[in-house]
Structures are given as structure tokens and as C-alpha cells.
């Protein structure tokens, strides 16, 4: 049995072990096909994931800077689950299983480690470090296809925006520290109640940093380019997990311990949500590349989550958590379908989906499910997600925000339905069903199951989310 301080970080330690293992194995790896290496990494994450299911809230670690509370555990399960799906989808395909499989997984797992720590961080220093540990590998992964001109360009853009925002973040945090005279978030929360302008400024600047991570408008501009250029399984993972992490930090920094004063963030979050929803949905309209379309729609979804954030209540927080879970399945699923089609057709354009319903009905049905879920249609996860955040906002009296969100959902459905039209209404260009690799198929099935299960029976997740969110306030 581990000593108390370590017990809190058991997941992180386990993941560290996996990292080490992959690193060592990589030294001995030879040849083009390194599927086994990828397999090992996946196995390791699976183990950690399994471990995460049994861990229980533990007393705070050294100096209370590292907490293993319900929120942290919920988030970590989410990260690990998403990572499992992501790795599974990448299994057996370049680059994840190619000659550089080792590097790929090392980077990815490092970033994951950062997220895990971030979810528990309750100290500015730890928070910032974890944040960077999460971010930096992503820049590299974005440009992992280093022979691909677009990929490296995307990675540069990602890096630029990322590092500038983290500079802003750090700058903000420095003020926070200065105003609170401590790096302990609990102290920050107390200081906030005295509403010191310096502190406020700091938190605002920090918010910019986090907004980049969750890709809220106008910090989103790296998103479409990166998504379009980077390898799809990675993008699928990138499109959900870091964002989830970002939201967890938001909760920690802006809600935890602030109680009533949390309302102060309402107008800002509402404003951010509005512009993000509008911009995301509108910019998605003219897209012809499915990944790019999903990128913009993803921005819009962040907006919807921010609606829950604007509620600045336990309910809102919980509903964002639920939204994130639903979003993991729907969004990753959608990206994976794109990956599947792209492997067969060599194209990621929406046109590549023509007549999919007649070529491989089940794949089309899966895609339809994911799209409907993203669009917020009954009996798939997204419906509840969207309505829950709306409900939370309404409960906080933000009816206008709900209306804006709901009306913009109509715009969103426009482009989702256009994709559906390609699959179901238009005739296929060439016959023959799409061949799926076993791991990818499995990943897709997981996503589909998740979407439907959540859609039909959301109760348990909702309850869990509410349980972990309540103590924050």
C-alpha cells in the first residue's frame, strides 16, 4: 500500500510507468511495423484506465497542491477513455504504428500525463507546469507527419498561438500570484472575494490562455488548420481530451471555493459563449472538408459548453461534464468515420461520403448517429447534453442565451444534414463497401454504443456528474 501522498497520484505514477516501458521498448524496436509497440501503449493505458475505475477520492497531496477529488477522478476517467479510443483507432495504421510509433506514443502519453496532473492541480505552479506538459507534445504531434507541408505549417500555427496564449496565461497567473500572495488556489478564491483589480486582470488574462486550450472564439484559429492537416486519429483525440482538461481547469480556477462570487463570471462566459456559438456555426456552413467542418462545429460545441459555464452553478458544471462525455463519443466517432472513409477513398472531403448509405449502410448509420448527436437530436447523447446545459442556463435565468443557442442549433443542423444528405440522398460515385480495419471498427462500435447508451439512458452519468460538481460550490 502506497503512503498517503503517493496514493493520491497513483494514476499518474502508473501512467509514468507505462511511459517508461514504452520508452525502453522503443529503444529495442526495429523494423517498419511497430504495431506491437502501439499495442503495448494501448494496453498500458487500458490498465491505467482500469485502475482509474477503482481509485477513490483521497486526501490532498503535499501542501494541498494535488487533490484526487471526485471531479479529478471523473475527468481522468474521461481522458483515459478517450485516449483508449484514440489509440485503438490509430492501431495498425501510420503514423501511430509505423517506424516512429515509439515517439508518437511517448508524446501522446506525456501529454496525457499532463492532463491527469492538471485535473488534480490546485496550485498555480503545478497547474501551469501540467498545462505546458500537456500542450507542448501536442505541437509536435500536430506536425508529426513531418514530410507533409500542410502538417508542419499547421503545427507551427498551433505552436505560435499556443505559446503566445500560454505566455498570456503565465503573465496572468503572475498577477494572480501577486494579488493573492500565494500560489494556492484556495487562497486565490478567498482573495477573489475582495475583488482586487489586479487579481481580476490576472484571472482574465489566464482565461485567455484557457480559452485557447478549449478553442473558444477568437482563440480557435489554430483549430481548423491543425485538424485538417494532422493525422485523423490524433485529431479525434485532440478534439476532445485537451478541451475536457481545459474545462476542468476552468472549474478549478474560476469556480472552486468561490461560492456565490462565481456569478461574477456569468456575463463574461455568456459573452464568450455567444460569440463562439455564432462564429463556430456560421464558419462551419461553407466547409467542404469534413474534418474542417467538424473543427468549426467543435468550436460551436465549446460555445454550448460555455453556456453551461455561464450558468456558474453546480448544475451547469455537471451538465458540462455530461456534455464532455457525450462529446467524446460523438465527435471522436465522427472523426473516425472520416478516417475510415479516407483510408478507402483517399479523400476527407464531404463529397467522399456520397451514397455511403448504399455502399456500407452501417457505417453511414453510425455517422448519422454521431451527426445527430452533435446536432442534439433525441435518443442520442447530444440531445441530453445540449438540453442539460440549456436547462442549467435557464435555471440561472439566462433565457436569452438559451434562445440564441437553440436557434443557432438550427444553423448547425443545416450543415450536419448536408453531410447526411451526401450519405443518404445522393447516389454513390463508385460501388463497393468500405473496408474497415478491426481496431478502427471496434473504436467506432465503442463510440456508437456510447452515443446510443447515453441517449437512451443518461441517468447514471448525469447523477455522477452532479455528485462530483456539487462540492465545488
Amino acid at each position, binding site marked *: 500500500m502506497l503512503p498517503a501522498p503517493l496514493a493520491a497520484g497513483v494514476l499518474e505514477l502508473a501512467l509514468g510507468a507505462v511511459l517508461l516501458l514504452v520508452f525502453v521498448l522503443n529503444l529495442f524496436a526495429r523494423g517498419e511495423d511497430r504495431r506491437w509497440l502501439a499495442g503495448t501503449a494501448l494496453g498500458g493505458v487500458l490498465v491505467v484506465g482500469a485502475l482509474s475505475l477503482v481509485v477513490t477520492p483521497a486526501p490532498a497531496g503535499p501542501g494541498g497542491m494535488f487533490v484526487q477529488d471526485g471531479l479529478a477522478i471523473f475527468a481522468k476517467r474521461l481522458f483515459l477513455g478517450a485516449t483508449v479510443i484514440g489509440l485503438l483507432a490509430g492501431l495498425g495504421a501510420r503514423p501511430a504504428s509505423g517506424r516512429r510509433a515509439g515517439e508518437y506514443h511517448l508524446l501522446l502519453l506525456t501529454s496525457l500525463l499532463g492532463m491527469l496532473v492538471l485535473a488534480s492541480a490546485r496550485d498555480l505552479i503545478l497547474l501551469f507546469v501540467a498545462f505546458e506538459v500537456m500542450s507542448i507534445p501536442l505541437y509536435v504531434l500536430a506536425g508529426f507527419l513531418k514530410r507533409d507541408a500542410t502538417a508542419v505549417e499547421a503545427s507551427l500555427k498551433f505552436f505560435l498561438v499556443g505559446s503566445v496564449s500560454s505566455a498570456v496565461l503565465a503573465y496572468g497567473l503572475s498577477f494572480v500570484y501577486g494579488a493573492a500572495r500565494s500560489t494556492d488556489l484556495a487562497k486565490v478564491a478567498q482573495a477573489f472575494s475582495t475583488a482586487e483589480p489586479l487579481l481580476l486582470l490576472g484571472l482574465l488574462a489566464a482565461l485567455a490562455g484557457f480559452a485557447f486550450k478549449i478553442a473558444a472564439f477568437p482563440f480557435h484559429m489554430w483549430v481548423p488548420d491543425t485538424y485538417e492537416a494532422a493525422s485523423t486519429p490524433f485529431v479525434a483525440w485532440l478534439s476532445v481530451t485537451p478541451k475536457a482538461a481545459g474545462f476542468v481547469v476552468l472549474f478549478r480556477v474560476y469556480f472552486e471555493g468561490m461560492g456565490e462570487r462565481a456569478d461574477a463570471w456569468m456575463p463574461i462566459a455568456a459573452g464568450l459563449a455567444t460569440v463562439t456559438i455564432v462564429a463556430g456555426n456560421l464558419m462551419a456552413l461553407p466547409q467542404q472538408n469534413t474534418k474542417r467542418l467538424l473543427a468549426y462545429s467543435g468550436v460551436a460545441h465549446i460555445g454550448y459548453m460555455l453556456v453551461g459555464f455561464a450558468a456558474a452553478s453546480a448544475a451547469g458544471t455537471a451538465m458540462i461534464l455530461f456534455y464532455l462525455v457525450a462529446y467524446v463519443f460523438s465527435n471522436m466517432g465522427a472523426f473516425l468515420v472520416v478516417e475510415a472513409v479516407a483510408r478507402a477513398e483517399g479523400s476527407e472531403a464531404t463529397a467522399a461520403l456520397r451514397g455511403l448509405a448504399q455502399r456500407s449502410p452501417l457505417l453511414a448509420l453510425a455517422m448519422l448517429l454521431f451527426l445527430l448527436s452533435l446536432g442534439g437530436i433525441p435518443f442520442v447523447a447530444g440531445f441530453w447534453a445540449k438540453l442539460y446545459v440549456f436547462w442549467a442556463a435557464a435555471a440561472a435565468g439566462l433565457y436569452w442565451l438559451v434562445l440564441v443557442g437553440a436557434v443557432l442549433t438550427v444553423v448547425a*443542423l443545416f450543415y450536419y444534414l448536408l453531410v447526411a444528405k451526401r450519405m443518404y440522398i445522393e447516389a454513390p460515385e463508385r460501388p463497393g463497401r468500405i473496408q474497415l480495419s478491426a481496431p478502427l471498427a471496434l473504436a467506432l462500435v465503442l463510440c456508437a454504443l456510447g452515443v446510443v447508451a447515453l441517449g437512451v439512458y443518461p441517468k447514471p452519468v448525469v447523477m455522477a456528474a452532479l455528485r462530483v460538481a456539487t462540492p465545488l460550490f
Partner: protein
Amino acid sequence: MDALRLPVLSVITWSPFVGALLIMFTARHRPRAVRLIAAVTTGVSLLLSLGIYVAYDREGAGFQFYEKVALVPPLGISYELGVDGISLLLVLLTAIIIFAGVFASWTVKVRSQEFYALLLALVTGVFGVFVSLDLFVLFLFYELAVLPMYLLIGIWGSSGEIRPRGIFAWAYRETGVGTKEYAAMKLTLYLLFGSAFILVGIFALWVHAGAGSFSYLDMETAVFAPGVQRWVFLAFYVGFGVLAGIWPLHTWSPDGHASAPTAVSMLHAGVLMKLGAYGIVRVGMGLLPEGAAELVWLVGTIACVNIVYGALSAMAQTDLKYVIAYSSVSHMGLVLLAAATLTEAGLNGSVFQMFAHGIMTGLFFALVGLVYEKAHSREIGRMGGFGRVMPGVATAFTVGGLSSLGLPATSGFVAELLTFMGAWRSEHRWWLFPAVVGTFLTAVYVLRVTKQIFWGPESPHFRHLEDARGPEWVALVLLVFVLVLFGMAPGLALGPVDTATVPLLARIVGP
């Protein structure tokens, strides 16, 4: 029913959905099986809805065949079902229409499996809205009822042709007006746009009721501040009104109904538009009596516009399906006008009109479907003298037409009579006149169309047409029968309806 301890409403609601799943997964490439499953599952719904119609205890009134299962306790969402006199009739209507619709679209060749699956899923949504007592679940079913439309119209629909004209021509070019894809998208998005308002309204009720529950019954007991009542009722009016086709939010309906395949037009014009009116009456008036009382003037006045404007537009159409579609706009005006009178006669008339017009318009679209698929044309100008080659269709069409112009002995008359009675007893007597004028205009265009299509010398290139056949007869006969039966014995329907409208009225204008 209760003796059987059968969750009868759930069975009615989900039976088509089960049918859809069966069709999807068992009946691949077996068209006959598809139709069989569809007929059986919808038949079950029909029989059971007849059953509850008979079994409904008129003395006891109120909501019966009650079911409840908690879904998300912390939010007070629960799967709660029950029917009163109003929903009872509309459930029956839905069952009849879809049953007829299954037979009317017997001849769908292309991808019939998906067609029937989507159709049945859609119907579950419709049933759900009528029977659910939990507003959240109601909304859920509402969306379920709207969405399949897109594919149903997009895949099996038929494109019309509309020339971009006027000052907005550029917009017409950019949006591709006239194509079935356009119509499908327009219909779906427009209705979801409406649902946005409904959503806000529902949440507002949840918040202000303070009961922490979405249950209709809990909210009934809650008291809402006048201000809240006003704007929430308005939200519901706009939201449901879109679906009910209130002017000027109606333009989705002609395009949508004209492009949709037969069964879908039947179901949509026949039942879904009623769903909007039902929402306004049940949720809007039922939960926000003061708001309703304050705003009926608006509802009724716009309804008057609907009636006359819709009838005139119908008269101007050269495309048969558009004529029927616009007549729906006009008749929905009657429905809402009747409701807005806030009188016993009026509310009864409103519900009865929902039923009558549902059957009538279902019949119309079934017939238009037959004519279209035989003559391959919707242009009224090109038709003529069909009466000789398809007497059955001609007769049915005439009956439908007579009902829509409110000829006695058809359901249409009873509905319109009650509407008139209610209108003149309401606070806005002048509403009577637009309503009456509307019926006359209806007489004008209906008889004009009938004459043009079925009478006169038959045009040479339509000699080959033949009358309705086999399964199609089932649809026609069933609908005509109901139309006339309820026209001659309106008590059958009004009995239960009255038990529901009177208390509703008492809530609004006091006993």
C-alpha cells in the same frame, strides 16, 4: 384495458417504433415483409387507440391510462403518459392516418425498407407528443417527429419548379428554391427553429413553477406571474405556431407538403400540423391561462389572416399538391380561431376541426398521390375528365372537397359550425366573418379544382389511367368512412372532448 394491466399508451406509442426496428434489421430486401410489418404494427396502434377510445371513462374525465417512470430524478424528468378527451381523439386520428398512410404508399418501390422504417419512427414521435404528460419528454418526442422528415422528403420526395422572381430573386437562386432538398431542409429547420422557442418556454415553466419537475400535472397546480405567463405563452405560440402554420411562419408547409411523398404529406399535413395546434391549446392555454386570455386576440386575428389568405393562395395555385397544402394553412387558421374564441363551442370545434381536417387532408394527399403516380403530373391545367377513368378517386376527392368546404353530413361542417358558434359568442364577434368568407372561398377553389380535374372532356393523353387498386382502396374507404361517420354523429367525438375542454376553459375564463 386496465384489466389487462397493459401500459396501453406505451404500446400504442412504441409499436410503430418496434416495427421500424424490425423492418430495419429483419426485412432487408423483402418488400412484402416490410409492408406487412408496417401494416401490423400500425394496426396494433389503431386497434388499441380504438380500444382506449371506447374504454375511456367519460364520467371520470381527466387524464387516464396513466403511466409514469422516473427518468432523471434530479431534474424531475419522467416518462409520464396519459390521455384526456383531447389527446384521445388526436391519438385516434394519428392511428387512422398512419394506418391509411401505410396502405396509401404501398407502391413505394425505391428503398422501401428505409422508407417505412423512417415513417414508423416518425409516427412514434407523433403519438408520443399526444400522450406524454412530461413536457421534457413531449419535447423529445416532438423533435423525433420532425427529424425523419428530412430524409423522407429528401429521398422519396418530388421536386417542383419555382421561377426566381421579384426583388428577392437572388436569394431564390442561392437557396435552390423548388427542389425537394430545399423543401426538406426548409421544413426541418423551420420546425426546429420553432422548437427553440418551445424549449425556452418549457424551461421557463420549470424554473417558475419551482416544483423541480417537468410534469404537466405539477405545473398545472403551479401559479405563474402574469408577466411570465405573457411572454412564455408568446414563446409557445410562436414555437408551436410554426408547426401549426400560422401566418407568416407557414411557408415551410406548402413547399414541404408539395415535395413530400404521399404518406408523409398525409401524416404531416394530417397530424403534425395539429400537433402544433395541440401544443398551443394543451401547453399554452392549459398551463398559462392568464397569458392565453390576454393574448387570444392576437392568436385569433392571425388565424383570420390564415383562413382568408390561405384560401386565396390555394386558389392561385396551379399545382394540385400546392392547392391542398395551402388549404391546410387555411384550415389550421380555423383550428386556431376556434381555440382563440375561448368558448365551449369554440374549443370543441377546434379539437374537432383538428380531427376532421386531419382525416380530410390525409384523404386529399392520398388521392393526390394516386393521381400523381398514375398521371405523373401535378399540373391541374394538364388534367381533365378523370371522372370517367377513375370514378372511385373522383368520388373520394369530391367527398373530401365537400368536407373541406364544410358541407353538412361531413366532419368539416360540424367543425366549422362550432367554430362559427364559438366565434360569435367570443369577445371578438367579427371573427365570424373571415371564417365564413373562408369557407366560401374554399368552396370556390375546391369545386374549381374538382371540375378541372375530374369533370369536363377527358384529355387524350390520360386515357390509360386506371382507378385505385387493392391496398389503396383500404386507405380511401377508411378515410371517407370516418369523415362521414363523424360528420353525421359528431357526438362520438365531442362527448369525450367536451369533458376535457370544459375544465380547460374553466381555468382560463373561470367557470
